[in-house]
């Protein structure tokens, strides 16, 4: 009888780790609360820094599930999750029950609710949207128009919305929004070559391979403007255009300008699903309210409960590449654990 693993959360991390674990011979059940797999990846049209299509990666992950014949349960709403002796019992609201020798939590993230940052006008002014909504506009392949229906000539992109901000209680950096902003500004320029794009940033975090090159391309090839200054507030003029108030810190003067569309780069927050599962399984949260891993360097897939493991963005913001790598790392950690390897031997 092969050992059983239940993976909670059918996004990138859940899919990839399930595929690997099944390939290694374990009996994996993947639980997903929506009616399809893929998580947030389904909402990204193009991925940084290469601009390849998001659904190529979705296809890659789906093939993993199909080829390995992973057991997938969609529309799964977990009502109970308990550890009894050395086993885990997961119950769904439709009375299905699953037993497992190890649980992998891949419940992912949610995007910051931009309505909490009231001064930026999301939910108040029509022409303020989030980066996710912009990406949806890209995916829909329709003409890129503002919510009030016109073709934008000037578009503003605001970095660090809901991240690095004591005033909303999220002091961490969400890692991917800077490079996403650069990516989206390039995409806007490709669709609307005559439009002007302005990025309002505090810092530009171009940490990954080819990110810096993307930034340079945005400036060189597409003429995207970068203004170093954090937005204090946005208001609306009579025509529904957004008036932006920012200080151009590199010049040293306050700057006022009107844009037709304002895009807010919203950051990562812990998902409700993560909070629910954590409560059921007694998992600890770290600073910043993401799940706490046993060690920040050496045991990033291990939780405080023996037999419960983590992968993906439920522990911290990650890029898609990092998440896939993390999922495979979790798979090998779980495999070792199930074969009796003492994964914490080296910490004693």
């Amino acid at each position, binding site marked *: 009888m092969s050992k059983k693993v239940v993976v909670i959360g059918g996004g990138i991390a859940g899919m990839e780790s399930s595929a690997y674990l099944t390939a290694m011979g374990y009996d994996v059940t993947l639980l997903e609360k929506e009616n399809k797999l893929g998580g947030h990846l389904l909402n990204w049209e193009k991925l940084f820094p290469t601009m390849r299509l998001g659904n190529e990666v979705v296809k890659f992950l789906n093939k993993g599930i199909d080829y390995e014949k992973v057991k997938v349960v969609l529309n799964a709403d977990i009502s109970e999750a308990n550890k009894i002796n050395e086993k885990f019992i997961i119950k769904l609201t439709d009375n299905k029950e699953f037993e497992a020798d190890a649980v992998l939590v891949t419940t992912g993230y949610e995007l910051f609710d931009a309505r909490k940052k009231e001064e930026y006008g999301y939910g108040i002014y029509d022409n303020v949207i989030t980066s996710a909504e912009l990406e949806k506009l890209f995916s829909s392949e329709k003409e890129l128009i503002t919510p009030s229906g016109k073709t934008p000539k000037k578009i503003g992109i605001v970095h660090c919305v809901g991240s690095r901000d004591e*005033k909303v209680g999220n002091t961490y950096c969400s890692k991917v929004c800077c490079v996403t902003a650069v990516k989206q500004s390039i995409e806007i320029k490709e669709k609307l070559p005559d439009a002007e794009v302005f990025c309002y940033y505090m810092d530009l975090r171009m940490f990954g391979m080819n990110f810096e090159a993307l930034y340079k391309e945005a400036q060189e090839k597409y003429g995207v403007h970068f203004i*170093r*200054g*954090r937005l204090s507030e946005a208001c609306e003029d009579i025509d529904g255009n957004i008036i932006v108030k920012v*200080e151009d810190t590199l010049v040293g*003067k*306050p700057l006022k300008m009107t844009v037709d569309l304002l895009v807010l780069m919203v950051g990562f927050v812990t998902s409700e699903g993560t909070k629910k599962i954590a409560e059921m399984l007694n998992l600890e949260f770290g600073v910043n309210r993401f799940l706490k891993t046993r060690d920040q360097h050496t045991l990033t897939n291990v939780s405080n409960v023996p037999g419960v493991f983590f992968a993906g963005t439920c522990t911290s913001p990650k890029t898609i590449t990092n998440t896939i790598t993390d999922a495979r790392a979790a798979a090998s950690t779980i495999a070792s654990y199930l074969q009796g390897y003492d994964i914490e031997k080296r910490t004693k």
Partner: protein
Amino acid sequence: MIDFGYQINTDRQIDYDNNNKDIINYIIKFEPTFKICIACGTCTATCSAGNFTDFNIRKLITLIKRGEYDEVKKDIDKCMLCGKCYLACPRAVNTRNLILTIQKALEKYN
């Protein structure tokens, strides 16, 4: 005296080594959040006084950190202490107390 055409250039650089650090140390002692400002500029963008006059609080704070006090002495009293900068600051710098402390420091080490 023959005019060789040279001028004496006053040093326009920030002479960091020789700038007086007493004021900086005083401020750090009484308002430690001075240290965590990242000069993002949100404070200046939202400033009430900034709507009427040249008052750039981010610049003044950064100048003090470098030991340059002349412009600060000129402008620091323009602050209305309204608190918008504090509400907007992402690092939760205690801007209002910082301004009061700066005024005290400038008076003390004049």
